[in-house]
């Protein structure tokens, strides 16, 4: 616990993509309370653009993504991210509970699938679980 807390600031950022500003705010406050650095995007398109700016590709350690969003939706955004930055773990937080979608997304390499509303404790626990697991690098 303390190791993660210590290292969290150095571990980089968490990108939150959600079209609801309130949801982003809640998630940000929750994550920041656990010393994570949070950047936000309003939709999949903005999220992808954000990943391309600065050193985000290297600094972002986790992406939390909604599914139903205007413009580029969550599934398309995940496809893009998995193609361009396969080693960055992705967690889905969505208001739509669908086991088929969950399975297909997990098969694609999404680390976790949480259904809104998410309790703070559960969110942080899952985030830490994902971050503590081994990173997947595609060396080829």
């Amino acid at each position: 616990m303390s190791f993660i807390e210590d290292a969290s600031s150095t571990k980089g950022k968490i990108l939150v993509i959600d079209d609801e500003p309130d949801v982003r705010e809640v998630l940000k406050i929750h994550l920041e309370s656990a010393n994570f650095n949070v950047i936000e995007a309003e939709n999949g398109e903005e999220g992808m653009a954000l990943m391309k700016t600065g050193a985000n590709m290297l600094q972002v350690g986790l992406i939390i993504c909604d599914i139903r969003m205007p413009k580029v939706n969550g599934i398309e955004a995940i496809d893009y991210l998995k193609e361009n930055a396969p080693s960055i773990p992705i967690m889905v937080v969505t208001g739509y509970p669908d086991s088929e979608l969950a399975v297909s997304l997990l098969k694609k390499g999404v680390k976790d699938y949480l259904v809104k509303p998410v309790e703070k404790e559960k969110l942080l626990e899952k985030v830490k679980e994902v971050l503590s697991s081994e990173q997947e690098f595609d060396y080829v």
Partner: protein
Amino acid sequence: MGTHDSKNVRAGLKNKLIWTMLGVGALPLILAMILSYFQGTKSLQGVIGASFKALAYETSTKIDLLIEGEILAHDRLATDPLIRDSILKSHQRLRFLDSEQRAQVLEQDKADWENSERKTKSLHYEETSKILKNFLKRKNPSALATRALFVTDSFGVLQGSINGFPEFIYKNNSVREKLLEGEKTPVFISSIYNHKKSEAPLLQFAFPIKDKRENPIGILHHIFDARELFSGSIEPITFGDTGHVMLIDSKGVVIDCPILPTGFQLADPLLVRNVTRPEPHWVKTIGDGHGGKELSIIGFSPLSLTRNYTSPSTGNDWYTFAWQSSDELFAPMNKLFLWISMAVVVSVLLIGIMGSMAAKRIVQPIRRLQNAAARIGKGEKVAPLEIQTGDEIEALADEVNSMNELLQKSFSGLENQVLKKTKEFRYLKEYTDSILMSVPDAVVIFDSDLKIEYCNAAFENIIKQGSDSIRGKDLLSLNLNLVEPWRVLYDAVKNHFENAPAVSTEGIGDTNFRNYMPIDPLAPKDLTSLQSMQQTIRLKDKIFAYQIFDLILQERSEKHVGILLRNVTEEVDLQDQLALAEKLSGLGTLTAGIAHELNNPLVSIMGFSEIILDEKDPKKVKKYAQKVVDRSKHMSSVILNMSGYVRAPSTAEKKEVDINERINAAIEIAILASYSNDIQLEKNFSSIPPVLAKTEEIQQVFLNLLTNSVQAMGGKGKLVVSTEAQNGNVVATIKDTGPGIPQEYLSKIYDPFFTTKEQGKGTGLGLNIVHKLVVKYGGHIDVSSSMGVGTTFSVMFPAHQNDC
């Protein structure tokens, strides 16, 4: 091969052999005989001709000698001195008179002569007559044939006669001219002529009487009966029944002939010309001068000595002419012909009989072979043939024997095989038949005239008729109670026949699984229902789905089409249940949408509440609490909005719906709901046919579209609604002057929960519902939009055809 044919064949070989032998043996024989007949005939004719010629020549020589003898005798008579003196004495009285005086004297003498009645004849007349009579005492034919013998002087005065003939003066000037004047020929021989008194044709010989100085002073005349003169030389010469010799002159006048009268003129000038040639010869002529018209052989010969006298006298030549009648002449030839013909007939008969025997010998074993072969052909068991002719036929029989043996062996093998194959075939046929007969689906095969060629038991069960009464009929002539469904089926088959594309196996690719895309659970699902395919017919209480397929029979080029009829009554019932399930699944989607819509504010409410729990700064607590309140309000509005969809009734039956009426109702609600007076409304309604649908659903379509438009314009703008009938369809167009839909959204507007409206104002279900309803009624929806100008929706429904 029938028995009748084989009989013909059997007779054929034997006949052929006999005919061949006859041809080979008899034909040359007949030819040789005919040749020898003609050659023989020719030689025979030559021989006959030559002998005729010889006969004619001999006769001519004989007559020549006769005439020569007469001439010599008369020449001697003419030089008798008493006759000469008598003429000279007569001449003394007349010689010094001129012609006028001489005529008077002769006139006087003549009158005296006639008056004296031959009693006062001069002495020299009597003497001369005595000499002449003595001359006739010779015993030769000429004496007998004599009709007159007299002497005249150069003036024609009679100087002596044997019988007082002629008159006192003999006035034949031509004789005098020939003998005393001009040419002075030694002898004159006249042509045949008829004297008035005597009936017989006469011939005159005349000789000049000369004085000592060889001057002619008188003429010795001798007149014969021509026939009597020559008959002794000619008429005895006969041969056969008709063969004889005749004497003619070069003008064709008969001098003597045993048959024709003397003086007769031969009628045929060609014949005369042929037989009056300068040399003895024989000719073949048509016609014989005796009335016959057949081919004749005539030998002839000129009288070469007599010619010297007759030619200067009258210009005539004399010819002998040997002849025989054609019948008699050709009798030997006919006999030859008869003999040869008999020989031919006999030899042909002989060859025929011998040939028949030989042919029988040859054909007998061949017949046996043929019989055996025929029996082998019929599949009978045949014992080995025993033919010992020692030739090819025996070899052939051996071949047939070994063939028979082999055949019997392979036959037994084949029989087994055929039995086996038949069994297999029967099994396969029964197998396939029983498959077709026992499948629960009805199978009907049509030929190109749409007549039923085959149907299985399931089909027979459906129409309750046996297959015998079905086959060869078309669907409409089956005497079925329900005509209408069968007509639908018939038309479908007919249509397929006329429009069916070439059978192709292309097009069933593996496109389905090329790209896997995780499905947005809220994206609309295309569920094809059996009902929407419409390929069903209803027979009483059962529903049958049908499928038409092409049947490819390799052997026949004709097109065949089959129908597969499946009882889908249960499936359709199931389908109805499925439709209900779909509706429920729509509800499921709705709940998912509700979940999404509600979970988002719930996140805020829950999150902010948790933050408040940990927050100590009262300002922040207040701020987050306010957010909790806001989000809760939003949630309640979402729930309120959604209730509109949920309460949509769906129990009413379909009926004819007037679109114009429904649009009017929808406009009223939509504009009322907008709480606005700034919307300019334009209605361009046409008279349109009704649509078969549920009234509420049609109204829902237009209500949703109009609500969208009104909301899009923000309560201000122009709304144009128009309807029209197009090709049996009804088209309604709704045009607004709103901000327009961005191009990238146009493909998503029918997705459920897609909305551009502010949070809390739309559920994202309006256009989704519109789309579902339009598709449900077989219609179509189109949208066109340009940013800043407006959006146009056009909805098409098929009009209800109430004429059937």
